[in-house]
């Protein structure tokens, strides 16, 4: 006992003039391992680590499995669907479905159209929402709160409720009936009928502009409804974007703007040169939302809404691809026909979202960043 104590005393040796070396006896490896790995603390950590990864991997599997199964089915040959032993990994690899959809459904043209539409609306929405939200966040004026409630109202009222009314309104778009009045339309005030043919009489509208009718301007089958809705912050979920931007701007310290004002910068210059560069991560987030939600939207672009001739018009969109079966593959006279056609429809769906997946892979870092910095709070 005594000897051991003396042994474990640190030895001090003089190495040179100004240096000493102290040698300790280390605790034996076994003891150290015991202290490290047999404690409650370590056990807790391991269990938590396990639980966490099992949960995360499990849920990641739930999210990704449908995509995985769809992707693998899209590469299968017809033969594989009749073979019961083929499930998730194709035996006969084939690109037939992609090829047929690419050629017959004119994927490239649809892709170009959708890109134009989504990109333009998403860019407009991102800018307009940030602009409007800045007004709500940083300026005190009468009616600020009420107007913001109206923004939330546009978010809450489902566009489906307003769908038919919106379609009628855009099929004869007009501002207070002024245009229709000028273009040969009639108006009746207290039973007094008044018609005017002003525009026709001065003849400034070319005959090729067939959209101009006496009932207003027919904007269906064009991108204009989307652009008009985006320009005014009324498009799909724009209330949410305005809300997100507003929360973000409220977190920006006022001193930043005040110092800019003192240096002689105006309100708009401050917004464009100081606030906007600050909010790039947030803008990326909103842009991603707007872009992908426009890309996958099949309600507004459908025949029900703004594209009554969606199948034949030059406005073929990628969302028209999903759910359709190319005629060369529509043979349904074999055993697994329903499965095969399901797979074809899925392949169409995959081709719709493929550009989004690619974009997401590149942008997901800024998406998360934008969300983290948004400091969304409810007050």
């Amino acid at each position, binding site marked *: 006992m005594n000897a051991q104590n003396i042994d474990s005393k640190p030895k001090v040796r003089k190495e040179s003039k100004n240096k000493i070396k102290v040698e300790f006896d280390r605790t034996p490896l076994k003891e150290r391992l015991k202290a490290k790995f047999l404690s409650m603390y370590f056990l807790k950590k391991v269990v938590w680590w396990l639980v966490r990864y099992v949960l995360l991997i499990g849920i990641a599997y739930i999210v990704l499995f449908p995509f995985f199964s769809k992707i693998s089915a899209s590469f299968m040959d017809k033969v594989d669907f009749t073979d019961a032993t083929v499930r998730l990994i194709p035996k006969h690899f084939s690109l037939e479905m992609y090829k047929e959809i690419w050629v017959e459904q004119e994927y490239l043209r649809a892709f170009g159209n959708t890109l134009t539409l989504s990109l333009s609306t998403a860019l407009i929405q991102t800018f307009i929402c940030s602009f409007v939200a800045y007004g709500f966040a940083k300026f005190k004026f009468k009616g600020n709160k009420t107007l913001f409630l109206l923004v939330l109202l546009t978010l809450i009222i489902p566009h489906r*409720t307003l769908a038919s009314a919106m379609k009628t309104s855009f099929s004869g778009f007009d501002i207070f009936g002024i245009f229709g009045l000028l273009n040969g339309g009639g108006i009746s005030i207290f039973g007094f009928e008044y018609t005017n043919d002003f525009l026709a009489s001065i003849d400034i509208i070319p005959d090729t502009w067939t959209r101009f009718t006496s009932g207003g301007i027919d904007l269906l089958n064009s991108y204009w409804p989307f652009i008009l809705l985006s320009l*005014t912050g009324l498009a799909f979920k724009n209330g949410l974007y305005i809300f997100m931007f507003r929360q973000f701007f409220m977190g920006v310290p006022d001193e930043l703007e005040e110092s800019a004002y003192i240096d002689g910068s105006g309100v708009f210059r401050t917004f464009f040169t100081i606030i906007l560069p600050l909010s790039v991560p947030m803008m990326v987030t909103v842009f991603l939302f707007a872009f992908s939600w426009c890309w996958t939207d099949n309600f507004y672009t459908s025949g029900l809404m703004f594209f009554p001739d969606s199948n034949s018009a030059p406005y073929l969109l990628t969302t028209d691809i999903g759910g359709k079966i190319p005629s060369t593959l529509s043979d349904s006279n074999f055993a697994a026909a329903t499965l095969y056609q399901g797979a074809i429809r*899925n392949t169409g769906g995959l081709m719709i979202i493929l550009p989004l997946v690619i974009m997401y892979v590149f942008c997901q870092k800024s998406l998360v960043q934008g969300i983290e910095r948004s400091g969304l709070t409810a007050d």
Partner: protein
Amino acid sequence: MTDSVKIKNKSVKKKKIASLDKRKARAGWVFVLPFVIGFILIYLPVLFESLSASVTYREKIDGKWVETFVGFKAYIEAFLGDAVDGQTFLQVLITGVSEMILDIPMVLLFSLFMAILLNQKMAGRAAFRAIFFVPVILSTGIMDSIDASALDTYMGSNEGIDDGSGQDAASSIVSAMDVQRLFAGMAIGDGMLKYVTDAINNIYEIVNRSGVQMLIFLSGLQSISPAIYESVQIDGATAWETFWKITFPMISPMILVNAVYTVIDAFTTESAVMTFINTASQSLPAQGLAISTAMSWMYFLLVIAILALIAGAFGAYVFYQKKN
């Protein structure tokens, strides 16, 4: 002479200088102008049109559309009218709304739990985050609207490969029976049990629907100052205490926001009630439009009432960290 000059100066001054507050208010109006213009020129007419459609019957008589004002007849008709597809509007409304309300706690719990998990430092956090936010971008209905259910069940199942149990193993993750056995000794009602097992079996749907909520919770967690956690750690708080005394109160405003968002989301996306309303408009050609519009306005009012209830109930318990 001098008097008139003075007056002139005065009037010029008055014109030139508006107070800073006034100028800022004016600038604020300019910023929100796009929305105001749109609201007045596009949204209000559409809103008005939709409301007026619900109080007029349009009928084609002798090739001409005739509109007759009927007041609240369509609303009454919607409630007392005949069943469509064997269900009345009231039944669909009750089931739809109760489902919506039951979904809220599930989505909230799940998204809060996942946000807390994803907020912790660990290897592969960025990858997990990227995976979990995939639904936000990709699941807006287009993939669901593509009918490929036959393929999905086939790919997910292992029928044909006999696992010896004699039952379809992959039809559901857990069956209520298994869980029932587990909880046999505890006095938990069957309804509660079914709720939980349904939640687990519908986990895919819940994951898909809680993407934005997860993002909102995550941003809320990020905005809590690490200094608070540090100081409670020094004071010796356990993880449990830290969660209930710090994280939970700090994140409670986000719970309110998410509850509201969940309701709005469930309400605005495709639901049983909306499908019913659409079929109703097609099955009744004469007054279909009026009745279906009336239905959707009533549904909207009900949801607004629910939102107000939620906001009121949660609002009493929400903790706000006052900044000034």
